[in-house]
Protein backbone atom coordinates (compact mmCIF):
# COMPACT_ATOMS: atom_id res chain seq x y z
CA UNK A 1 0.00 0.00 0.00
CA UNK A 2 2.68 2.43 0.96
CA UNK A 3 4.80 1.60 -2.00
CA UNK A 4 1.83 2.18 -4.23
CA UNK A 5 1.08 5.62 -2.95
CA UNK A 6 4.70 6.65 -3.33
CA UNK A 7 4.65 5.79 -6.96
CA UNK A 8 1.36 7.50 -7.43
CA UNK A 9 2.78 10.67 -6.02
CA UNK A 10 5.55 10.70 -8.52
CA UNK A 11 3.03 10.45 -11.38
CA UNK A 12 0.93 13.54 -10.77
CA UNK A 13 -1.58 12.13 -8.39
CA UNK A 14 -4.02 14.96 -8.92
CA UNK A 15 -4.76 14.31 -12.59
CA UNK A 16 -8.21 12.92 -13.00
CA UNK A 17 -8.01 10.10 -15.52
CA UNK A 18 -11.60 8.95 -15.53
CA UNK A 19 -14.62 10.61 -14.09
CA UNK A 20 -18.02 8.98 -13.97
CA UNK A 21 -21.03 11.16 -13.20
CA UNK A 22 -24.44 9.84 -12.34
CA UNK A 23 -24.10 6.66 -14.37
CA UNK A 24 -27.31 4.75 -14.91
CA UNK A 25 -27.80 1.41 -16.64
CA UNK A 26 -31.03 -0.35 -17.20
CA UNK A 27 -31.98 -3.75 -18.49
CA UNK A 28 -35.56 -3.60 -19.63
CA UNK A 29 -37.31 -2.06 -16.67
CA UNK A 30 -34.74 -3.06 -14.07
CA UNK A 31 -32.32 -0.28 -13.24
CA UNK A 32 -29.14 -2.21 -12.45
CA UNK A 33 -26.98 0.86 -11.88
CA UNK A 34 -28.80 3.74 -10.25
CA UNK A 35 -26.78 6.88 -10.55
CA UNK A 36 -23.18 6.30 -9.66
CA UNK A 37 -20.34 8.80 -9.57
CA UNK A 38 -16.67 8.16 -8.96
CA UNK A 39 -13.29 9.09 -10.25
CA UNK A 40 -9.95 7.49 -10.93
CA UNK A 41 -6.75 9.47 -10.74
CA UNK A 42 -3.81 8.81 -12.99
CA UNK A 43 -1.67 5.98 -11.69
CA UNK A 44 -4.18 4.73 -9.15
CA UNK A 45 -5.63 1.36 -8.41
CA UNK A 46 -9.29 1.74 -7.55
CA UNK A 47 -11.30 -1.19 -6.28
CA UNK A 48 -15.01 -1.60 -6.82
CA UNK A 49 -16.50 -4.22 -4.56
CA UNK A 50 -19.99 -5.50 -4.04
CA UNK A 51 -22.11 -8.58 -3.87
CA UNK A 52 -23.37 -10.62 -6.76
CA UNK A 53 -25.57 -8.58 -9.03
CA UNK A 54 -24.64 -5.28 -7.42
CA UNK A 55 -23.97 -3.88 -10.86
CA UNK A 56 -20.19 -3.95 -11.00
CA UNK A 57 -19.87 -5.56 -14.39
CA UNK A 58 -22.57 -3.32 -15.77
CA UNK A 59 -20.50 -0.26 -14.83
CA UNK A 60 -17.44 -1.60 -16.60
CA UNK A 61 -19.43 -2.51 -19.68
CA UNK A 62 -20.94 0.93 -19.77
CA UNK A 63 -17.53 2.58 -19.59
CA UNK A 64 -16.26 0.39 -22.41
CA UNK A 65 -19.14 1.49 -24.55
CA UNK A 66 -20.86 -1.83 -25.03
CA UNK A 67 -23.92 -0.98 -22.98
CA UNK A 68 -26.12 2.06 -23.46
CA UNK A 69 -26.30 4.16 -20.33
CA UNK A 70 -27.37 7.44 -18.87
CA UNK A 71 -25.03 9.96 -17.26
CA UNK A 72 -21.60 11.12 -18.19
CA UNK A 73 -18.19 9.52 -18.47
CA UNK A 74 -15.13 11.71 -18.95
CA UNK A 75 -11.79 10.27 -19.86
CA UNK A 76 -8.91 12.73 -19.52
CA UNK A 77 -11.54 15.43 -19.43
CA UNK A 78 -13.15 14.36 -22.68
CA UNK A 79 -16.70 13.01 -22.70
CA UNK A 80 -16.76 9.52 -24.17
CA UNK A 81 -20.37 8.48 -23.80
CA UNK A 82 -21.06 9.10 -27.45
CA UNK A 83 -18.08 7.20 -28.75
CA UNK A 84 -18.27 3.62 -29.89
CA UNK A 85 -16.35 0.96 -28.08
CA UNK A 86 -13.67 0.89 -30.75
CA UNK A 87 -12.96 4.57 -30.27
CA UNK A 88 -12.94 4.19 -26.51
CA UNK A 89 -10.33 1.47 -26.75
CA UNK A 90 -8.31 3.70 -29.04
CA UNK A 91 -8.33 6.42 -26.38
CA UNK A 92 -6.72 4.02 -23.95
CA UNK A 93 -9.36 2.20 -21.93
CA UNK A 94 -9.08 -1.57 -22.06
CA UNK A 95 -11.12 -4.17 -20.28
CA UNK A 96 -10.48 -7.66 -19.04
CA UNK A 97 -14.01 -8.94 -19.22
CA UNK A 98 -15.80 -11.14 -16.75
CA UNK A 99 -15.24 -14.75 -17.71
CA UNK A 100 -12.09 -13.76 -19.58
CA UNK A 101 -13.60 -13.69 -23.06
CA UNK A 102 -10.80 -15.52 -24.76
CA UNK A 103 -11.42 -16.19 -28.45
CA UNK A 104 -11.54 -19.94 -28.46
CA UNK A 105 -10.76 -20.46 -32.12
CA UNK A 106 -7.86 -18.04 -32.20
CA UNK A 107 -4.42 -18.99 -31.02
CA UNK A 108 -2.80 -17.24 -28.10
CA UNK A 109 -0.77 -15.10 -30.42
CA UNK A 110 -3.77 -14.22 -32.59
CA UNK A 111 -5.70 -13.25 -29.48
CA UNK A 112 -2.92 -10.84 -28.66
CA UNK A 113 -2.61 -9.55 -32.18
CA UNK A 114 -6.29 -8.80 -32.46
CA UNK A 115 -6.04 -6.37 -29.57
CA UNK A 116 -3.74 -4.19 -31.66
CA UNK A 117 -6.50 -3.46 -34.19
CA UNK A 118 -6.29 0.26 -33.53
CA UNK A 119 -2.52 0.48 -33.67
CA UNK A 120 -0.38 1.08 -36.67
CA UNK A 121 3.04 1.23 -34.96
CA UNK A 122 4.49 -2.11 -35.98
CA UNK A 123 7.70 -1.77 -34.11
CA UNK A 124 6.11 -0.74 -30.85
CA UNK A 125 3.73 -3.65 -31.16
CA UNK A 126 6.59 -6.10 -31.39
CA UNK A 127 8.21 -4.55 -28.35
CA UNK A 128 4.91 -4.67 -26.54
CA UNK A 129 4.54 -8.32 -27.37
CA UNK A 130 7.95 -9.07 -25.99
CA UNK A 131 7.12 -7.22 -22.81
CA UNK A 132 3.91 -9.16 -22.39
CA UNK A 133 5.66 -12.44 -22.90
CA UNK A 134 8.19 -11.42 -20.26
CA UNK A 135 5.37 -10.78 -17.85
CA UNK A 136 3.70 -14.09 -18.68
CA UNK A 137 6.30 -16.64 -19.70
CA UNK A 138 3.58 -19.28 -19.66
CA UNK A 139 1.93 -17.60 -22.63
CA UNK A 140 5.16 -17.41 -24.54
CA UNK A 141 5.36 -21.18 -24.37
CA UNK A 142 1.81 -21.54 -25.67
CA UNK A 143 1.74 -19.01 -28.48
CA UNK A 144 0.23 -21.45 -30.96
CA UNK A 145 -2.28 -23.13 -28.70
CA UNK A 146 -5.96 -22.37 -29.31
CA UNK A 147 -7.37 -20.04 -26.69
CA UNK A 148 -10.31 -22.34 -26.02
CA UNK A 149 -8.16 -25.14 -24.72
CA UNK A 150 -6.18 -23.13 -22.17
CA UNK A 151 -6.83 -23.73 -18.53
CA UNK A 152 -8.59 -21.11 -16.49
CA UNK A 153 -5.45 -19.55 -15.12
CA UNK A 154 -3.80 -19.40 -18.48
CA UNK A 155 -6.85 -17.81 -19.97
CA UNK A 156 -6.87 -15.16 -17.29
CA UNK A 157 -3.26 -14.35 -18.01
CA UNK A 158 -4.05 -14.15 -21.68
CA UNK A 159 -6.98 -11.86 -21.02
CA UNK A 160 -4.78 -9.46 -19.08
CA UNK A 161 -2.00 -9.67 -21.61
CA UNK A 162 -4.45 -8.95 -24.35
CA UNK A 163 -5.74 -5.87 -22.61
CA UNK A 164 -2.18 -4.67 -22.21
CA UNK A 165 -1.62 -5.02 -25.93
CA UNK A 166 -4.06 -2.19 -26.56
CA UNK A 167 -1.53 -0.02 -24.73
CA UNK A 168 -4.17 1.15 -22.34
CA UNK A 169 -3.80 3.95 -19.85
CA UNK A 170 -6.66 2.53 -17.86
CA UNK A 171 -7.34 -1.14 -17.38
CA UNK A 172 -10.78 -2.27 -16.27
CA UNK A 173 -10.55 -5.68 -14.64
CA UNK A 174 -13.68 -7.68 -14.01
CA UNK A 175 -13.07 -10.32 -11.36
CA UNK A 176 -9.62 -11.36 -12.46
CA UNK A 177 -9.28 -13.83 -9.60
CA UNK A 178 -12.48 -15.74 -10.26
CA UNK A 179 -11.96 -19.46 -10.46
CA UNK A 180 -8.22 -19.26 -9.98
CA UNK A 181 -6.11 -21.31 -7.65
CA UNK A 182 -4.86 -19.37 -4.63
CA UNK A 183 -1.33 -19.34 -5.91
CA UNK A 184 -2.42 -17.94 -9.22
CA UNK A 185 -4.50 -15.34 -7.50
CA UNK A 186 -1.37 -14.11 -5.78
CA UNK A 187 0.48 -14.26 -9.02
CA UNK A 188 -2.16 -12.25 -10.85
CA UNK A 189 -2.30 -9.61 -8.14
CA UNK A 190 1.48 -9.35 -8.19
CA UNK A 191 1.43 -8.84 -11.94
CA UNK A 192 -1.33 -6.29 -11.68
CA UNK A 193 0.76 -4.28 -9.28
CA UNK A 194 3.72 -4.54 -11.60
CA UNK A 195 1.58 -3.23 -14.40
CA UNK A 196 0.37 -0.41 -12.22
CA UNK A 197 3.91 0.49 -11.36
CA UNK A 198 4.66 1.17 -15.00
CA UNK A 199 2.00 3.86 -14.92
CA UNK A 200 -1.20 2.14 -15.94
CA UNK A 201 -4.20 2.87 -13.80
CA UNK A 202 -6.45 0.03 -12.77
CA UNK A 203 -10.11 -0.22 -11.96
CA UNK A 204 -10.45 -3.51 -10.18
CA UNK A 205 -13.78 -5.21 -9.70
CA UNK A 206 -13.68 -8.07 -7.25
CA UNK A 207 -15.84 -10.39 -5.24
CA UNK A 208 -12.76 -11.06 -3.23
CA UNK A 209 -13.22 -7.79 -1.45
CA UNK A 210 -10.46 -7.71 1.12
CA UNK A 211 -7.74 -8.70 -1.23
CA UNK A 212 -8.83 -6.11 -3.75
CA UNK A 213 -9.18 -3.36 -1.19
CA UNK A 214 -5.76 -4.05 0.21
CA UNK A 215 -4.21 -3.82 -3.22
CA UNK A 216 -6.05 -0.60 -4.03
CA UNK A 217 -5.34 2.96 -3.06
CA UNK A 218 -9.03 3.76 -2.93
CA UNK A 219 -12.20 1.77 -3.09
CA UNK A 220 -15.95 2.02 -3.51
CA UNK A 221 -18.51 -0.38 -2.09
CA UNK A 222 -21.54 -1.03 -4.22
CA UNK A 223 -24.90 -2.35 -3.15
CA UNK A 224 -27.76 -2.93 -5.57
CA UNK A 225 -26.67 -0.30 -8.02
CA UNK A 226 -25.63 2.41 -5.56
CA UNK A 227 -22.37 3.38 -3.92
CA UNK A 228 -22.78 2.98 -0.20
CA UNK A 229 -19.25 3.53 1.02
CA UNK A 230 -16.02 4.91 -0.22
CA UNK A 231 -12.60 5.61 1.15
CA UNK A 232 -9.03 4.44 0.99
CA UNK A 233 -8.48 0.76 0.57
CA UNK A 234 -7.31 0.25 4.09
CA UNK A 235 -10.19 2.22 5.63
CA UNK A 236 -12.70 0.15 3.78
CA UNK A 237 -10.98 -3.13 4.56
CA UNK A 238 -11.35 -2.35 8.23
CA UNK A 239 -14.84 -0.92 8.00
CA UNK A 240 -17.28 -2.94 10.09
CA UNK A 241 -19.93 -2.91 7.43
CA UNK A 242 -17.55 -4.39 4.89
CA UNK A 243 -16.30 -6.92 7.40
CA UNK A 244 -19.80 -8.00 8.16
CA UNK A 245 -20.82 -8.37 4.53
CA UNK A 246 -17.68 -9.91 3.17
CA UNK A 247 -16.23 -11.96 5.94
CA UNK A 248 -19.38 -13.86 6.75
Amino acid at each position, binding site marked *: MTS*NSQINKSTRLTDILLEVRDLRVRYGHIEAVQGISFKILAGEIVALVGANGAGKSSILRAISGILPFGGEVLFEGQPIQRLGSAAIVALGIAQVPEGRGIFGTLTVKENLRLATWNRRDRRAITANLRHVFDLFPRLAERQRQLGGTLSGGEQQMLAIARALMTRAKLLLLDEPSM*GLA*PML*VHEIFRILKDINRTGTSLLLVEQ*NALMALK*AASRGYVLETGRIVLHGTGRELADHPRVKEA*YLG
Partner: protein
Amino acid sequence: MKPWFQANNVGHHFGGLSAISGFNLELRSGELVGLIGPNGAGKTTVFNLITGVYRAAEGSIRFQGRELTGLTPWIISGLGIARTFQNIRIFKQLSVLDNVRIAHYRRTHYSLAEALLHLGRYRREERRLTRAAMEILRLLHLESYADETADSLPYGLQRRLEIGRALATGASLLLLDEPAAGMNPSEVGQLMEFIGWIRGQFNLTILLIEHQMRLVTGICERVLVLDFGVTIAEGRPNEIQNNPQVLEAYLGQAEDGGQMTDDGRQT
Protein backbone atom coordinates in the same frame (compact mmCIF):
# COMPACT_ATOMS: atom_id res chain seq x y z
CA MET B 1 -16.28 -56.00 0.37
CA LYS B 2 -15.54 -53.87 -2.68
CA PRO B 3 -15.26 -50.13 -2.16
CA TRP B 4 -18.38 -48.10 -2.82
CA PHE B 5 -16.72 -46.01 -5.48
CA GLN B 6 -13.33 -46.66 -6.92
CA ALA B 7 -11.31 -45.07 -9.70
CA ASN B 8 -8.33 -47.13 -10.56
CA ASN B 9 -5.32 -45.88 -12.49
CA VAL B 10 -7.46 -43.65 -14.70
CA GLY B 11 -5.77 -41.77 -17.50
CA HIS B 12 -6.96 -39.47 -20.25
CA HIS B 13 -5.36 -37.19 -22.78
CA PHE B 14 -6.37 -34.54 -25.30
CA GLY B 15 -4.26 -34.80 -28.37
CA GLY B 16 -0.76 -34.88 -27.02
CA LEU B 17 -1.69 -33.35 -23.70
CA SER B 18 -2.04 -35.76 -20.84
CA ALA B 19 -4.83 -34.28 -18.76
CA ILE B 20 -5.01 -37.04 -16.17
CA SER B 21 -2.81 -40.01 -15.51
CA GLY B 22 -2.65 -42.76 -12.93
CA PHE B 23 -5.54 -41.29 -11.04
CA ASN B 24 -6.83 -43.28 -8.09
CA LEU B 25 -9.73 -42.44 -5.86
CA GLU B 26 -11.79 -44.40 -3.39
CA LEU B 27 -14.90 -43.09 -1.77
CA ARG B 28 -16.81 -44.58 1.09
CA SER B 29 -20.49 -44.03 1.23
CA GLY B 30 -21.31 -40.79 3.01
CA GLU B 31 -17.93 -39.16 2.69
CA LEU B 32 -17.30 -35.56 1.70
CA VAL B 33 -14.09 -35.31 -0.26
CA GLY B 34 -12.42 -32.29 -1.82
CA LEU B 35 -10.50 -32.21 -5.05
CA ILE B 36 -8.16 -29.29 -5.43
CA GLY B 37 -5.29 -28.32 -7.61
CA PRO B 38 -4.02 -25.53 -9.82
CA ASN B 39 -5.94 -24.45 -12.89
CA GLY B 40 -5.66 -26.95 -15.64
CA ALA B 41 -4.65 -29.71 -13.27
CA GLY B 42 -7.39 -31.94 -14.57
CA LYS B 43 -10.03 -31.69 -11.89
CA THR B 44 -12.95 -31.02 -14.19
CA THR B 45 -11.62 -33.74 -16.45
CA VAL B 46 -11.97 -36.19 -13.58
CA PHE B 47 -15.63 -35.24 -13.28
CA ASN B 48 -16.10 -35.62 -16.99
CA LEU B 49 -14.58 -39.07 -16.89
CA ILE B 50 -16.71 -40.20 -13.99
CA THR B 51 -19.93 -38.94 -15.55
CA GLY B 52 -19.14 -40.36 -18.97
CA VAL B 53 -18.81 -37.06 -20.85
CA TYR B 54 -15.38 -38.30 -21.85
CA ARG B 55 -14.52 -41.92 -22.11
CA ALA B 56 -11.45 -42.79 -20.08
CA ALA B 57 -8.55 -43.90 -22.22
CA GLU B 58 -7.08 -46.02 -19.45
CA GLY B 59 -8.09 -47.48 -16.15
CA SER B 60 -11.40 -48.36 -14.66
CA ILE B 61 -14.04 -46.55 -12.67
CA ARG B 62 -16.39 -48.68 -10.59
CA PHE B 63 -19.44 -47.49 -8.75
CA GLN B 64 -21.36 -49.79 -6.45
CA GLY B 65 -19.67 -52.71 -8.12
CA ARG B 66 -20.44 -51.60 -11.65
CA GLU B 67 -17.93 -50.58 -14.25
CA LEU B 68 -18.66 -47.08 -15.53
CA THR B 69 -16.18 -46.67 -18.34
CA GLY B 70 -17.89 -47.03 -21.67
CA LEU B 71 -21.35 -46.20 -20.35
CA THR B 72 -23.18 -43.18 -21.70
CA PRO B 73 -23.82 -40.21 -19.41
CA TRP B 74 -27.53 -40.87 -19.16
CA ILE B 75 -26.98 -44.41 -17.96
CA ILE B 76 -24.43 -43.25 -15.42
CA SER B 77 -26.85 -40.63 -14.25
CA GLY B 78 -29.43 -43.34 -13.79
CA LEU B 79 -27.03 -45.29 -11.61
CA GLY B 80 -27.03 -42.45 -9.13
CA ILE B 81 -24.26 -40.03 -10.01
CA ALA B 82 -25.10 -36.39 -10.54
CA ARG B 83 -23.05 -33.27 -10.97
CA THR B 84 -23.00 -29.53 -11.31
CA PHE B 85 -20.88 -27.59 -13.74
CA GLN B 86 -18.07 -25.14 -13.44
CA ASN B 87 -20.04 -22.70 -15.59
CA ILE B 88 -23.67 -22.97 -14.63
CA ARG B 89 -25.58 -25.06 -17.15
CA ILE B 90 -29.18 -24.89 -16.15
CA PHE B 91 -31.91 -25.01 -18.80
CA LYS B 92 -32.17 -21.27 -19.07
CA GLN B 93 -35.42 -20.76 -20.89
CA LEU B 94 -37.36 -23.39 -19.03
CA SER B 95 -39.18 -22.81 -15.82
CA VAL B 96 -37.46 -23.57 -12.55
CA LEU B 97 -39.96 -26.35 -11.99
CA ASP B 98 -39.24 -27.93 -15.36
CA ASN B 99 -35.54 -27.83 -14.66
CA VAL B 100 -36.13 -30.04 -11.69
CA ARG B 101 -38.73 -32.21 -13.36
CA ILE B 102 -36.38 -33.06 -16.18
CA ALA B 103 -34.02 -34.45 -13.63
CA HIS B 104 -36.68 -37.01 -12.74
CA TYR B 105 -36.50 -38.21 -16.29
CA ARG B 106 -35.27 -41.68 -15.56
CA ARG B 107 -37.75 -42.26 -12.82
CA THR B 108 -40.99 -41.60 -14.58
CA HIS B 109 -42.95 -44.74 -15.14
CA TYR B 110 -45.14 -44.20 -18.11
CA SER B 111 -44.61 -45.08 -21.72
CA LEU B 112 -44.49 -42.76 -24.67
CA ALA B 113 -47.91 -43.97 -25.83
CA GLU B 114 -49.39 -43.23 -22.42
CA ALA B 115 -47.92 -39.77 -22.57
CA LEU B 116 -49.18 -39.07 -26.07
CA LEU B 117 -52.71 -40.18 -25.36
CA HIS B 118 -52.88 -39.16 -21.70
CA LEU B 119 -53.73 -42.68 -20.70
CA GLY B 120 -53.20 -44.87 -17.70
CA ARG B 121 -50.39 -43.96 -15.45
CA TYR B 122 -49.68 -40.63 -17.10
CA ARG B 123 -51.83 -38.51 -14.81
CA ARG B 124 -50.81 -40.25 -11.62
CA GLU B 125 -47.14 -40.23 -12.45
CA GLU B 126 -47.20 -36.66 -13.61
CA ARG B 127 -48.79 -35.57 -10.33
CA ARG B 128 -46.26 -37.53 -8.35
CA LEU B 129 -43.44 -36.06 -10.36
CA THR B 130 -44.64 -32.51 -9.93
CA ARG B 131 -45.10 -33.05 -6.24
CA ALA B 132 -41.62 -34.49 -5.87
CA ALA B 133 -40.12 -31.63 -7.83
CA MET B 134 -41.98 -29.07 -5.76
CA GLU B 135 -40.74 -30.77 -2.64
CA ILE B 136 -37.16 -30.35 -3.71
CA LEU B 137 -37.80 -26.72 -4.60
CA ARG B 138 -39.34 -26.24 -1.18
CA LEU B 139 -36.34 -27.72 0.56
CA LEU B 140 -34.07 -25.39 -1.38
CA HIS B 141 -36.36 -22.39 -0.76
CA LEU B 142 -36.97 -21.99 -4.44
CA GLU B 143 -40.63 -22.84 -4.61
CA SER B 144 -41.78 -19.28 -5.02
CA TYR B 145 -39.82 -19.18 -8.26
CA ALA B 146 -41.31 -22.39 -9.65
CA ASP B 147 -42.97 -20.75 -12.62
CA GLU B 148 -40.23 -18.29 -13.49
CA THR B 149 -37.77 -19.02 -16.23
CA ALA B 150 -34.50 -20.19 -14.79
CA ASP B 151 -32.36 -17.44 -16.29
CA SER B 152 -34.34 -14.77 -14.48
CA LEU B 153 -33.00 -16.05 -11.15
CA PRO B 154 -30.14 -14.24 -9.48
CA TYR B 155 -26.79 -15.93 -9.85
CA GLY B 156 -26.65 -17.47 -6.41
CA LEU B 157 -30.06 -19.03 -6.81
CA GLN B 158 -29.10 -20.38 -10.22
CA ARG B 159 -26.26 -22.25 -8.51
CA ARG B 160 -28.68 -23.52 -5.95
CA LEU B 161 -31.11 -24.59 -8.64
CA GLU B 162 -28.34 -26.46 -10.37
CA ILE B 163 -27.63 -28.36 -7.19
CA GLY B 164 -31.34 -28.98 -6.75
CA ARG B 165 -31.58 -30.35 -10.22
CA ALA B 166 -28.70 -32.71 -9.52
CA LEU B 167 -30.39 -33.87 -6.32
CA ALA B 168 -33.62 -34.53 -8.18
CA THR B 169 -31.97 -37.23 -10.24
CA GLY B 170 -31.99 -39.24 -7.05
CA ALA B 171 -28.24 -39.42 -6.98
CA SER B 172 -26.29 -40.86 -4.12
CA LEU B 173 -22.98 -39.48 -5.35
CA LEU B 174 -22.92 -35.75 -6.00
CA LEU B 175 -20.07 -34.06 -7.85
CA LEU B 176 -19.83 -30.30 -7.33
CA ASP B 177 -17.54 -28.32 -9.63
CA GLU B 178 -16.53 -25.06 -7.95
CA PRO B 179 -19.84 -24.39 -6.25
CA ALA B 180 -18.49 -21.26 -4.60
CA ALA B 181 -17.12 -19.61 -7.72
CA GLY B 182 -18.13 -15.99 -7.85
CA MET B 183 -19.40 -15.92 -4.30
CA ASN B 184 -18.19 -13.54 -1.67
CA PRO B 185 -16.98 -14.83 1.65
CA SER B 186 -20.23 -14.41 3.49
CA GLU B 187 -22.08 -16.25 0.77
CA VAL B 188 -19.45 -18.98 0.94
CA GLY B 189 -20.29 -19.41 4.59
CA GLN B 190 -23.95 -19.97 3.75
CA LEU B 191 -22.99 -22.38 1.02
CA MET B 192 -20.94 -24.45 3.45
CA GLU B 193 -23.90 -24.83 5.72
CA PHE B 194 -26.10 -25.67 2.80
CA ILE B 195 -23.80 -28.42 1.54
CA GLY B 196 -23.61 -29.96 4.95
CA TRP B 197 -27.36 -29.85 5.24
CA ILE B 198 -28.19 -31.48 1.93
CA ARG B 199 -25.63 -34.13 2.60
CA GLY B 200 -27.52 -35.21 5.66
CA GLN B 201 -30.94 -34.64 4.17
CA PHE B 202 -30.35 -36.63 0.99
CA ASN B 203 -27.85 -39.11 2.28
CA LEU B 204 -25.18 -38.07 -0.12
CA THR B 205 -21.60 -38.81 -0.81
CA ILE B 206 -20.02 -35.64 -2.15
CA LEU B 207 -16.92 -35.01 -4.19
CA LEU B 208 -16.23 -31.34 -4.73
CA ILE B 209 -13.80 -29.18 -6.63
CA GLU B 210 -13.07 -25.80 -5.14
CA HIS B 211 -10.45 -23.12 -5.10
CA GLN B 212 -11.73 -21.31 -2.05
CA MET B 213 -9.71 -23.01 0.64
CA ARG B 214 -11.99 -21.81 3.38
CA LEU B 215 -14.71 -24.02 2.04
CA VAL B 216 -12.41 -26.97 1.47
CA THR B 217 -10.86 -26.88 4.89
CA GLY B 218 -14.18 -26.07 6.48
CA ILE B 219 -16.22 -29.04 5.34
CA CYS B 220 -14.14 -31.67 3.58
CA GLU B 221 -13.11 -34.73 5.48
CA ARG B 222 -10.46 -35.66 3.03
CA VAL B 223 -8.72 -33.74 0.26
CA LEU B 224 -7.01 -34.86 -2.91
CA VAL B 225 -4.57 -32.55 -4.63
CA LEU B 226 -3.96 -32.79 -8.36
CA ASP B 227 -1.23 -31.15 -10.34
CA PHE B 228 -0.62 -31.71 -14.03
CA GLY B 229 -2.97 -34.66 -13.99
CA VAL B 230 -1.17 -36.45 -11.20
CA THR B 231 -2.21 -36.79 -7.58
CA ILE B 232 0.46 -35.05 -5.52
CA ALA B 233 -1.07 -35.34 -2.10
CA GLU B 234 -3.99 -36.80 -0.27
CA GLY B 235 -5.09 -36.49 3.31
CA ARG B 236 -7.03 -34.50 5.87
CA PRO B 237 -7.34 -30.79 5.12
CA ASN B 238 -4.90 -29.69 7.79
CA GLU B 239 -2.34 -32.18 6.60
CA ILE B 240 -2.67 -30.94 3.08
CA GLN B 241 -2.25 -27.34 4.08
CA ASN B 242 1.18 -27.99 5.43
CA ASN B 243 2.31 -30.33 2.72
CA PRO B 244 5.33 -28.62 1.10
CA GLN B 245 4.47 -29.94 -2.35
CA VAL B 246 0.96 -28.56 -2.15
CA LEU B 247 2.24 -25.26 -0.86
CA GLU B 248 4.56 -25.00 -3.74
CA ALA B 249 2.20 -26.09 -6.48
CA TYR B 250 -1.05 -24.69 -5.31
CA LEU B 251 -1.38 -22.61 -2.21
CA GLY B 252 1.66 -20.44 -2.48
CA GLN B 253 3.89 -19.61 0.49
CA ALA B 254 1.85 -17.35 2.67
CA GLU B 255 -1.21 -19.45 3.14
CA ASP B 256 -3.59 -18.76 5.94
CA GLY B 257 -6.41 -21.07 5.17
CA GLY B 258 -8.59 -18.36 3.75
CA GLN B 259 -7.75 -16.45 0.66
CA MET B 260 -7.33 -13.05 2.20
CA THR B 261 -3.63 -12.92 1.99
CA ASP B 262 -2.39 -9.49 2.75
CA ASP B 263 -0.81 -8.66 -0.51
CA GLY B 264 0.06 -5.14 0.37
CA ARG B 265 2.87 -6.36 2.56
CA GLN B 266 4.29 -8.70 0.05
CA THR B 267 5.36 -6.16 -2.50
